């Protein structure tokens, strides 16, 4: 059971969190301009890096989404930062 850090609530058990998306994914729109391949790519293709990863998680307890940098190999949690525009 890992410990993740919510930028607002502090360190909590990983079961309080839910993975949202890999950070930096931009939603292709408007729909008319997006090819089937591009949409499928956006929905289903992930980088899934071995090692350092930047991910968006949500702390279910407080409902805040945030960016977490962690190492998928060593399980080290490197940083947790609020989404741009949100004050911690």
């Amino acid at each position, binding site marked *: *059971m890992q410990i993740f850090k919510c930028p607002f609530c502090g360190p909590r058990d990983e079961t309080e969190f*839910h993975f*949202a998306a890999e950070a930096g994914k931009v939603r292709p729109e408007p*729909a008319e301009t997006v090819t089937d391949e591009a949409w499928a790519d956006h929905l289903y293709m992930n980088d899934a890096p071995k090692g350092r990863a930047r991910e968006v998680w*949500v702390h279910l307890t407080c409902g805040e989404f945030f960016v977490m940098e962690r190492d998928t190999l060593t399980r080290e949690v490197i940083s947790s930062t609020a989404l741009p525009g*949100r004050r911690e």
Partner: protein
Amino acid sequence: MSGWRLADGGAIDRSRPLAFSFDRKALSGFAGDTLASALLASGVRGLGRSFKYHRPRGLWGLGGEEPNAIFDVTEDGVTTPNLRATVTPLRAGMALASINAAPDAAHDRYRMVDLAQRFLPAGFYYKTFMGLGWMRWEPMIRRMAGLGWLDPANHPAANTPQVNARCDVLVIGAGPAGLAAARAAALGGAMVWLVDEASEVGGTLRWRGGTIDGADWHDFADDALAAIETAGGRVFRNTTLWGAFDHGLFAAWERRESAPDRHWRIRAGRTILASGAIERPLWFAHNDLPGVMSAEAALHYLRLYGVVAGRRIVVATANDASYPVAAALAATSAEVTLADARSETPGAPDGVRLLRGARLTRAKGSHTVVAAVVDGAQHDADTILVSGGYTPSVHLFAQAGGKLDWNESADALVPRPGSAPMVVAGAANGGFGLATTLAQGHAAGGGSGPVPRVAAEGDWGLAAMRPDPALSGRQWIDPQNDVTLKDVALAAREGFVSVEHLKRYTTLGMASDQGRNANFAGLAAMAALTGRSIPETGTTTYRPPFTPVPLSAIAGLRRGELFNPVKRLTLEQSHRSHGARFREYGGWLRPSAYGDNEAEAAQSEALAARQDVGLYDASPLGKIEVLGPGAAELLDFCGYVRMSTLKLGRARYGLMLGESGIIHDDGVVLRLAADRFILSASSSHVGSVRLILEEARQDRFDPVSVYLHNVTANWVTLTVTGPRSRELLRAAGMPGALTDDAALPHMSVTETAWDGHDLRVARVSFTGDRSYELSVSARHGPALHSVLEAARRRIGGSWIGLEALMILRAEKGYILIGKDTDGITMPHDLGWSASRQKRSDEYFGRRALFTPEAKRPDRRQLVGLETEGDTPLPTGAHLVPLNGPRRSLGFVTSSYFSPNLARPIALAMVEGGQSRMGEELGVFHLGDLRSARIAPACAFDPEGERLNG
């Protein structure tokens, strides 16, 4: 000739004899014995039969590594299977039964299997028993396999408290290294938790003894325990630390005598692993005979229990650590011969006959040892004690991600410093000998206080011992799974040269001893066969648990109703008083029907609701408030149906999709103000719907402009439905405007007051009849219930349960998410095409509605089914063509007998269903074929007139 008890000595209580039995033979031990020590003292040798070949097996070791002495133990009429004798305390009246032997260990009727051993090597089941098909033989083989017997009357109590805790320093193992580490850490001011699986601290000191700082080791131990207590720490005995998990989390199972066991989840600031090492066997022909034991174990039984392993003992070794064992045994009346494989050895202990450069090559005997063959010479013996070296217990280090390096002088794989977040000290680190373990422990603990001093000693002079394939006769590598050295060679020949393949092909290391006796030999043998070094060959992955842990210890109280607790209604008691039966719906405990015969009650309730007036508790329906100037924009993006165009005081049904275009949930949205909406969500989907809204709110929109609030639990909602619903509201004294259709038309909402409380009333219908959803603050729910119930008693009407409600909504073709929709259903499959065709703004899931998959003409679509007779179609039955090859065109999703139509009704998802109206299809279920006609989903009042009826 076999084990016997000294007249005195040991930590047992000789004033308290305990009677027990083994394979129906009456025996006796003492309080303080384990099953193993009592059996050893009784002289019984054959304790079981091996897994595959049914060879006689006896006691080998002293702890969790014991491979053979495993019993089904019956106490007070209840049998617990597969208890290890070495770690189970003896209690009066215990009846032990050997496992894998019929009728018992001494007279096993399957002993003939060993004669066929040449045809039953490792993996024989991949190559043999193929004639007539494997399933012809599998039941017979399965009956012969397996260990122990499961007693259906054995229900372990669900009473193990689960405790979460933190400590500064966790010291795993209370042997000399652990005691030194804990003492140093405590003297340094840390709050130390010291954990040991034995009933007393001390580890090997308990049977080897030792003089520390000029005094008996007990003084040193007491000193350490006092230091721990002074610094606010804690000492755990009978506690197995069984798993190392992420971020410093450890799991420990604490066994207690007159209280329920406890299970601990411990977060440690720092961890010191002092788990010691386990003696290795030696490999020679018939090394599995009863009477062959670990030398360390023999000293353990002698010192702790006063039991001598035999009378004519050969000790075979290649290290100095076995010399005190030989000396201690010789001091009893046993004859001891020490066969040391090394040519340079210490001097012979008193009373011990020493043979140098002596190799043990064979054990002789059929059911027990009668002789040992050393360098071709036969020595009469009843017991052979062996030591092939020591294997550090690195399991927890490896579980935490640590790597191992080969250490030549320890002849072992030892932890690589820094590769896991724990410090290893003592024998677990390949540091053998009291001086080394104390020094390493002291340093690991931070070095506070004086270094514990012992008499100087050399290292143990460990000579590397390995299985020798040149020896004739079968040599056992894994006694539990009956894996021999020849099996390792077989695996190599067949190409299974990686240790992970070796393990799985031969099953070496896969039994309850988890490879403690087999893994080193297996990997050393494979290394030799493939010309690799031991570190090159590597080890298999270490996984929790360190030793077997009962699931009941980990599950604690989470069983039965507490396994997945349901949510409860505020008004549950009121419903119960009214005769409701309850079932779980969407995670909530809700009334299924009011009456003993659920099915009959559902029918009469569904009838009464349409003919008269029905009442039901709709509180679990999700309610999420969406507030702020950005509320409408957020709902427009997150929903399939636009809500920004919804007028104040009105309600609109909508769908929420996922980005893949698949329907996630449905629900009605109420608009209470320009900047205030209430979104309904299915009771089981509230959490996920809120997350979809939150993600858009925070990542796409300005979160300051819109706020979300899950108010599901804050409101009690009671729904009044049916042609006489207005009458009931008037009889209950509800504000007159509610029953004025001009003020409150269908699909509208108002906030008003009743009896001084806020009341929200929405005219939304899940039954298809005129319906009023009345919502009050949960704490006023009982008052609302009271007044409605009083009105019902005066003017008539019925409480209806979920079963009746399911029928009513199905009569109208109203879907249930997850029952009439599945993981691929899109809105246009249900006939909801307007948004897809007309919306030009972006919304969640929009692009996915135009993929080739979404545009397929043969997508399954929602339809109704009509059928002959009175029996409803089976839910889940497949729709199939009446002619031609049979294939599934879809399936029945909801099916009931409709009392209001006096016939069966059903909903189904069928390929191209909308263009099959009137078509007859087959309905196939478990070999039966019926037929049904495709019809509109709404079977009752298709014009919807009863909404205002």
